[in-house]
Every structure is written in C-alpha cells, then in structure tokens.
C-alpha cells in the first residue's frame, strides 16, 4: 500500500485467463437465451436503446442529403406522381365499379349462407428503413419506429406490392423485420385461382418463397397467384404474397413443393406500412417459433 500509484510491479485484478473464461461464459449464456427467447431480451433492448442516438447521429448526413434532394426535386416529383395517380385513378375506377358489383353480390351470398363478415379494417403506421444491418446469417431491415409508435412483434409489413414481412423484434424507438423470404417466416396463403389453402415459408433459394406439404396431385401450376388466407389471424386475408414460378412434384414421396416470386419489393423503397393487427402474446411467439413452445405449459399443469 506504500507503493506509489504509478509503479506497477505486479499485475492487479483477475488474471486474463479468468477474465476470458468469465466473458466467454457470459457470451454463451447470452447466445443461449437469445436463441431460446427470440423476441425479448433485456440486454438487447438496453443496448438497442443506448445505440439509437448514435445510429441517428451517424445517419444524419445521409438523411440530410435525402431530405434536401426531396426538397429540390419536389416540383418534378409532384408532377410525375400526379401523372401516375391520374393513370391509377382511371384504372381503379373500372376496378371499383366491378368491386362494388362483386361486393353486393358477395354480401347477398353471405346472407344466403349465413356467414357474417367481420370488418377487416386495421390501423397502420408508416415506417421508414433506418438501416440495413450487416449480417451474414439472415437479411433483416431495421425501421425507425418501435413500440412507442404502437408496433409490436408479429405485425405484418406491407408495401404496394403486398406482404413484405413481419416484425421480429421491437425496441422503444426501432423495430426489426424479417423478410418474407426469411426462413423464420411462415404465412398462411391461398391460391387465388381455386382457393387451395397452403402455408408459405421462406425458401432456401434466396429471394423466393416456397409452399410445401401438399399432395403431388394438388391443383397448383406456374403463374398462380398466392394471397394471404387469413387463417391464423395474424395476416388479414387477401394480401398479395407472390406468384408461383416453379412446381416440383415428387411421385416418390407423394408430396410436392412450389416456389413463388414475392410480389413485394422490400429492396426498392424506404417507406413501408405496418398493419397494427391485434396480436396476442402467445400468437406472436408461435408466429416466430413454428413448433414445440405451446406444449410446455400444458405439460406443467398436467404434472401438478
């Protein structure tokens, strides 16, 4: 203790090996908990909240450039947008008259069948891509709004082409989304032509969605359009998912699989729509973990 503070004859504190062992154990514990509880992790939330101001600070020049670009191009942008909207309005006018007719007919048929229609209007939030994380294992997007804007895990993300993906993690200011083509996403779909119900998964082929687990004589062919079926309650019915571009039938297994090209384009624009569908906590957990998690509490109650 008499020693002056600058003189260090002996190493103080724990040995490097001890420190290393501790840190490696902590890292493994984090990896384990992160792999088990995918959507919530207090360490991640803490770091994410701490990182947010720095991320905004670093992205500030880019945001300024895009804002000033928008500002200077405003006149040209508005002109081209007006033209596009005019064209769309004319096209939609025809669709609307047709849809009104179909709607009336549908309502009448539903009355005949005794089926009640639930209003499928959901509030939504417009989000913007904050950044595209560098991750070799999976492709994700990070948006600039989080649980403060009413976003929660499991909500579907749309663009003008259809379903883009699903929210996988939320922090107060940001949210993380997995694309339709990610392997952790599964969406209940329907073939528009004949109403065949299927489940679409992210494909092992990059940039594709695949449907599997249907018998090889099922009526599905190239060019079929897949829309969400609304089964499961997370994705509202009727959203466009993709177009089948390859069907593989295996006579040996009796099953077939088909690949579809997504109709949405997550790589093209910065703005997306998050549909605020009501999500039950266990539904959100099961949406991102396809199996096994639901059995645990039931087994626990039985043993009591």
């Amino acid at each position: 203790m008499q020693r002056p503070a600058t003189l260090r004859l002996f190493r103080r504190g724990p040995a490097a090996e001890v420190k290393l062992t501790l840190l490696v154990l902590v890292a493994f514990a984090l990896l384990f908990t992160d792999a088990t509880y995918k959507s919530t992790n207090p360490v991640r939330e803490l770091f994410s909240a701490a990182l947010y101001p720095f991320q905004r600070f670093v992205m500030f020049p880019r945001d300024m450039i895009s804002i000033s670009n928008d500002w200077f191009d405003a006149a040209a942008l508005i002109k081209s947008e007006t033209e596009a909207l005019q064209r769309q309005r004319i096209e939609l006018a025809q669709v609307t008259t047709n849809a009104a007719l179909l709607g009336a007919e549908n309502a009448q048929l539903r009355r005949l069948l005794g089926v009640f229609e639930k209003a499928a209007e959901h509030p939504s939030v417009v989000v913007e891509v904050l950044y595209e994380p560098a991750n070799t294992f999976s492709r994700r997007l990070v948006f600039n709004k989080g649980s403060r804007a009413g976003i929660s895990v499991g909500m579907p993300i749309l663009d003008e082409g259809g379903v883009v993906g699903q929210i996988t993690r939320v922090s107060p200011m940001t949210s993380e989304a997995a694309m339709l083509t990610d392997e952790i996403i599964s969406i209940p779909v329907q073939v528009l032509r004949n109403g065949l119900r299927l489940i679409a998964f992210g494909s092992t082929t990059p940039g594709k969605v695949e449907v599997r687990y249907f018998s090889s004589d099922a009526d599905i062919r190239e060019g079929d359009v897949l829309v969400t079926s609304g089964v499961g309650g997370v994705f509202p019915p009727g959203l466009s998912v993709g177009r089948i571009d390859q069907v593989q039938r295996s006579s040996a297994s009796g099953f077939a699989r088909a690949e579809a090209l997504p109709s949405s384009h997550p790589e093209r624009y910065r703005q997306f729509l998050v549909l605020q569908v009501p999500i039950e906590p266990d539904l959100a957990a099961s949406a991102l973990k396809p199996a096994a998690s639901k059995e645990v509490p039931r087994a626990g109650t039985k043993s009591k």
Partner: protein
Amino acid sequence: MQALNRSKATRSSRAGVSPPPVPLPRPVGPSPIDHATSLGFVWATLLGVWLLSLLPWRAWPMSPDLLLLVILFWSLHDARRVGLLTAFVFGLAMDVHDVGPLGLQALTYTLTVFGAQSLQRRLLRFELVSQALHLLPLLVLIKAIGALLGAFLVSAWPGWSWLVAALLTAALWPLIAWLLLLPQHRLQDPETTTS
C-alpha cells in the same frame, strides 16, 4: 554534444557575431514502457471507428472489421486500458446493431483480443507487415469459430465471405497500426531504442 555546442558558441561570441541561442537542457522523457498514450486519444479513436462501423458500408459481406483492428491495436499497445472487457462490450454493441445472434461478435472479439495479448511480447518485436502475418491465422481461426457457431445457431451456412473478410482485415493491419502510431512517434521498437 552539448559541450561542443557551447564551445562553438563561445568561439562565435569572440568573433563578434551574435551568439546563437544555447539549447536549453530538456528533461528526459519517461521510458517508453511507462509512456502511456493519452486517454482521450485512445477513446477518441475507438469511438470514432465504432461510429464509422455503424454506417452501411459494412453491409458488404467481405468488408474488413476496422473496429476489431483498432481494439486489437490498443489491446496490444495499451493493455491496461483496453482489454477483454472493452472488446466484449464493443462486440455486444455490434451484435445489437447487426441484429445477429446476441453475443457472437462479443465472443469473437474477446477471443481475438485474448489471442493477440498472449502473442503480445513476440508480436511487438516485429515490424508491421510481419505483425499482420502473425495476426492472420488468429483472425482466420476466430472468424471460423464465429462462422461455425453462427451457422449452428441459425442452421444455415453463411458462405465463405468471412474468410475474405478475415484476409482483408489482416491486410489492413499495417495501415491502421501505422496511422495509430503516427501521433505517438513510436514507430521504432521501444525496447531496442531504450537500451
């Protein structure tokens, strides 16, 4: 040397020319082993390169890991301040930013710094290019561990881009180390110049 200068000065004053200023005796600097770089510089470079790593250029899968290089540099040259814990915390921050498996980069950063620190005595006796050659197998090994562990966790092989990234990271070591040594004038090996 100083005596020589002084005699020159007296001679010139005798000759009637105004005497050149006698060089003042300067205190001898502390030995390079005790010579600590300023705390501000260490943390400024670390935070600077960390902020740089938040930018989207890292989306290229083969991009070199500049943050790891700077952490490695300081863990070799200023092991009292920057060590395993710093590497762990920065790794965790990058994990959260990259939304990957939480703890994976923290683990690889910690292991890399440990490997480099156990090589420290040997490493610092070589010049920068040889240091890079020493770091290369370490970086490749630990990146491989990271890739295997990540592949196990997400059950998908990420491809071989991490290998190129490790090669590029090692190749950038001389440049980064040279840049960080510049303000400190410690290009010579301290242990050979002191004796």
